[in-house]
């Protein structure tokens, strides 16, 4: 157990030293078009990649909460949120009606066999990445009401 603790703390300390690049993976959008994740995020504007699923209640709560303030976020920082659904073929059908039914305006990408989720070593949902110039500058897991405000502070910090 002691060794596991040492191992974890070492990995943690390494993690503080670097910012990662996104993997070169293509995902489909809701219109069936292929989108390259690297190209999409190579931008001076901050991009938020939010990993979610239709069956994940905290994910829906987070995206619902952000959707209420999203217009203000975009006006002030030009940030773009890309909601990456990890739904498999069981619940994938529910994505389109759910997104429209909730009136979300995010771009939706489909990671239906979890290729991107696996490549980024994401284990729990919701999981959120803040990306600028193709580099991951912040990662966060789980959602509590109000934590979207902390996300926005980071977005503001990296704008310009």
């Amino acid at each position, binding site marked *: 157990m002691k060794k596991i603790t040492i191992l974890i703390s070492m990995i943690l300390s*390494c993690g503080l*030293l*670097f910012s*990662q690049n996104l993997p070169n993976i293509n995902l489909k959008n809701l219109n069936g078009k292929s989108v390259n994740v690297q190209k999409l995020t190579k931008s001076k504007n901050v991009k938020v990649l939010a990993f979610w699923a239709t069956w994940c209640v905290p994910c829906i709560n987070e995206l*619902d909460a952000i959707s209420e303030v999203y217009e203000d976020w975009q006006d002030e920082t030009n940030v773009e949120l890309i909601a990456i659904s990890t739904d498999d073929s069981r619940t*994938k059908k529910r994505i389109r009606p759910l997104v429209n*039914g909730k009136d979300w305006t995010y771009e939706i990408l489909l990671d239906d066999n979890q290729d991107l989720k696996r490549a980024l070593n994401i284990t729990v949902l919701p999981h959120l990445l803040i990306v600028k110039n193709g580099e991951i500058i912040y990662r966060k897991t789980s959602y509590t009401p109000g*934590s979207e405000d902390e996300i926005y502070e980071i977005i503001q910090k990296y704008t310009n």
Partner: protein
Amino acid sequence: MNKILLFLTCIPLGLSLSAQVLDNITIGLESNTVWYNDDSETGDFFDNANNDGDKHIRSNNYLKIDYNFLESFTASVQIESYEPFALLNYSKSYEGTNLGTYSLNYRDSKLNITAGHFYSQFGSGLILRNWEDRQLGINNSLQGGKVVYEPADFVSLTALYGKQRVGFKISDGEVFGFNSELDAGALLDFRETSLGIGLSYVGRKEDTPFVDPTFDELTNLFSGRVDFYQNKFYSNIEYVLKSEDAIKQGGQLSNRFVTGGSAILFNTGYSKSGFGIDATFRRLENMNFFSERNAAGNVFNESSINYIPGLTKQHDYLLTNIFVYQAQSTVNLDTSQSGEIGGQLDLFYKIKKETLLGGKYGTKIALNASYWAGLSGDYIQDNPDAGTLPSYEVELFGFGGKYFSDFSLEIRKKWSPKWRSILYFVNQSYNKKIVEGSGAMITSNIGVIESTHKLGNGKSIRFEAQKLNSDSAKHDWTGGTIEYNLNSKFSVYVNDIYNNGSDSDTEKTHFFNVGGSYTKGATRLGLNYGRQRAGLLCVGGVCRFVAEATGLTANITMSL
């Protein structure tokens, strides 16, 4: 074990010398440790799978490292440790510490080549899906090679070969696959319309145990798909054909019972801003498909090549997950089963702001209904004396006995900037005999009220009250949850469900959990003490049975 830990510790240390290298590494760590306790109410700890009652502390650990180099290459390893044994209810094939998966991948704009373990999915997965679910103890990746070739942006071709991962070993059976996807909409330069066509093949080759087999070593599955999307309307259809193969009856592979299978999947929907509707129909006939024929019916879902999820809504609350449907695709003449037929309907609607029902913030409504039944037809038992072979004859669109139905309504309402609530109602009918092997049809009504109150400074509190009434004297449940978020990092919760009915497995027992979590960035630590109810644990429409257990659980997940 110690050497591996030391080795793993050295990797990140050595790499920290070079930031260049670190920029291209991602690491995922997951650790789940349970200290199982003897429980005065539900009995002493005992692990039937390993016939062990002494090793109370168990730990499942996963470390995955991905390294991107020379722009186009990725090397990936996953090390897994189940010490001293895996957690309860995991397959015995996960034992000790070992290399779980490894792969080397090359990718450019046209080619994507993987050697080693890979995960692949053709279409909806009805004929092939490799995936990992650590909670369910599933990792059915293939070990071999895969090539994906995209000569133009409207066409994608995949060829693969491999043996399937089973615990830390690989299957005897071999899997061959070929997949083609054509974006006909892009090819024909449609502006507003998308039209996709997919054709796939999967073959499984395994030696037969019979001297004179009445079926081939190689079983073939074909899938054809059309995917259409225009403006607000979409529709897709898939047809699957499975060649003749031996059926397992009464736990034995039979040379006398050989038959094929098929699947039809149809989905259509319409959605616009504030409104969405989606309908699915599916018929399955003898669609079980494993890399080893004898794996059919295993409770751990090991060796499955295709993905057959239950198409019902995945509910979010404790009492809505007591009776969970599992897709039925197995042939069983004793219960006149050869598959299932049925469908599911989803409706989403947002009542606009500043209307009578919408109020200041609008109201969000989600409705789901599903119905599943057996295939109606004639089922003929094996009778060597009379010279009849086992067989069945089913109608294409005939609905047999009911297996499951579910109706649910969810209303989400924000009352003020600080208060929001969810009202949830479910009506379910569950054929316990079909899904679990014994019992009768149970019909239940479940109501849930959930409210979240923001207290400012990141503090918030959430309540859930749940009630389940059924037509059976055995099930009358009450449940509740309280969760308190101290800030965005610390969270504590307590929940409890209690059956006032006469069900001998669960009556008069509190299935409670108390726990807390700490989250910082992408690191989460969780600690939980509680009593787990025996029953089906389901993730993504795939279920396995878990035994009753009481204990202290610690989870660590980390992504770097």
